[in-house]
């Protein structure tokens, strides 16, 4: 079975990728100028030298770096990613809780930006050279040139500060017990960060979709379809959508990595307690086990996204399908 062989090969490559991600993260942590002790022990709660030594010994800060990595990796083999130095909870638990928050945020943004990006791209291409197209293009270029955190700040200013429609920050209402938080509360807090992420994700997808569809509309087969009586929208529907699906899928699943990067910024702006927020904490506090865990998880997530896209290709394109069975 060729598909099985393909998946097997890809999985091996995926494992290699994750090993590389962990190694690079580890090297970067070693090179970091941040002293985890100084980051943890703030000026407000000074501790004695004995206490410092105790903490350092507890964290294993004095152990040789490779030994620390070895410890973490051998623990990982048993499904344990160690204990977060900052949260003082198992890393798996920290990631699980925050990942759920992020997952919701990213899923909403992923679907919204994918859908609206695609629609805007198709409309712009179909109305190429008109005002509609120009408007969409200018909008996309503006958004694409603006940093995510800046757009986040603008949205925060307009909708939370001036209009007061949505909460300023956090993923749940302040001062409410965790058990009492409803789904409605969570969604309410999700709106602005999700909006920020979606808005920034749209432009990429819209611009690519637009260009692809313009290529299709200028193709020989579109000319021939017109010669056979198809109207512009019939050409878009019968030939355009199918032919731009492949690049759109590539882009959509490829955008997962950007979504991760974007969510770090968006979550920080909105103090939304998701994985991105935790990643920033882990980085600034130099929480080694937590940082390794997050790097591993996000690497895996992005890998699965790309793998999914690769598995979808043969379903869309018969030439790839044929290529796989004849390999």
């Amino acid at each position, binding site marked *: 079975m060729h598909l099985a062989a393909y998946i097997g090969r890809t999985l091996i490559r995926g494992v290699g990728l994750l090993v590389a991600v962990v190694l690079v993260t580890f090297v970067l942590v070693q090179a970091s100028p941040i002293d985890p002790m100084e980051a943890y022990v703030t000026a407000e709660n000074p501790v004695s030298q004995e206490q410092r030594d105790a903490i350092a010994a507890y964290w294993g800060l004095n152990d040789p770096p490779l030994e620390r990595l070895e410890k973490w990796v051998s623990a990982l083999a048993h499904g344990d990613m160690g204990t977060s130095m900052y949260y003082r909870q198992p890393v798996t638990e920290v990631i699980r809780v925050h990942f759920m928050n992020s997952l919701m945020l990213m899923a909403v943004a992923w679907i919204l930006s994918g859908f609206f990006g695609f629609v805007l791209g198709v409309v712009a291409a179909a109305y190429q050279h008109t005002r509609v197209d120009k408007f969409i293009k200018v909008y996309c270029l503006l958004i694409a040139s603006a940093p995510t955190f800046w757009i986040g700040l603008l949205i925060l200013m307009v909708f939370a500060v001036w209009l007061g429609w949505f909460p300023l920050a956090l993923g749940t209402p302040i001062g409410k017990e965790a058990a009492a938080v409803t789904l409605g509360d969570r969604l309410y807090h999700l709106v602005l960060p999700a909006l920020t992420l979606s808005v920034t994700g749209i432009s990429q997808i819209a611009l690519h979709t637009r260009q692809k569809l313009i290529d299709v509309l200028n193709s020989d*087969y579109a000319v*021939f379809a017109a*010669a*056979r*009586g198809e109207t512009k929208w*019939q050409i878009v529907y*019968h030939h355009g959508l199918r032919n731009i699906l492949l690049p759109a899928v590539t882009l959509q699943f490829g955008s997962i990595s950007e979504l991760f990067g974007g969510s770090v910024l968006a979550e920080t702006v909105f103090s939304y307690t998701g994985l991105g927020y935790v990643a920033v904490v882990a980085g600034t506090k130099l929480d080694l086990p937590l940082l390794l865990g997050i790097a591993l998880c996000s690497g895996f997530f992005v890998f699965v996204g790309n793998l999914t896209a690769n598995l979808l290709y043969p379903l869309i394109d*018969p030439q790839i399908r044929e290529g796989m069975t004849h390999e």
Partner: protein
Amino acid sequence: MANHDTAPVLDIQNLSVKFRMYDKGLRQSELQVISDINLNIKAGEIVAVAGSSGSGKSLLAHAVLGILPKNAMVSGSMKYCGTELTPAVQADLRGRDIALVPQSVSYLDPLKKVGPQVQGLYGTKEQQSQVFNRFELAEETAEKYPFQLSGGMARRILVSTAVISNAKLIIADEPTPGLNPEIAETTMKIFRDLADEGKAVMLITHDIDLAFLFADRIAVFYAGTTVEIAPVADFIRGGDALRHPYSRALWNALPQNGFKPIAGGQPYAGNLQGGCPYAARCSHCSTECTTAKTIKMQTVRGGEVRCCHAT
């Protein structure tokens, strides 16, 4: 219907096509790509439109179908069976009464099975089966994708898209280049059969040899206009049987007639200055050829020619 029986299937009068272009910044200019064409095709007839690349042959096909780009301006008259081809009429006739046979398999949607593509907007599954039957295409071919077709199969599929429509006018745009002689000849035979069934065929080609074998009349294109339209017999005889110096030079350039190249090149549409477009390369060129504003088509010995010196 009387009118429809007597009128040619396609009757083109004084057709010109210009493109509006932007030069530098906002300065607009017009580029005349087809000038003053008169051409008619009757039912049962194959008219070959021959000429080198860039002479405007394909644009003529697109003009008849009404699928020129938006910046094109068309003037003159085109009639289909006596009915003026306005954009609305063209939109209605495209794919039903006027069919295009494209050049290559790249004109098929690469991700769509050929069966549904042959059916198009107006055809049915049964019609498609009949057409496949006629061209000896296996029923399973309908399930194939364009990239899985062999050259000969692709050719028959492309012709099928036109035949399924039952169109009276079939425009074949370069249907033979890149084909081996055998398949090319088979393809031309299909067009001959279609014409013999009463369809009008416009055969755009630069394969003049094949046109000799299968066409009824040949229209020679040069720099966006027709320089000579004559029965195929005149072209087979060649030499003095032809009326325009370019047709003669074209004939002499054929491998079997001496392979003599014509010096110079076809003028770029934007550089045309009135007079005869062939004047610069013509050995009979006189002042009249370059000073005349336009040179009209005239009937000489049963053919039409655009030349001051034709006798």
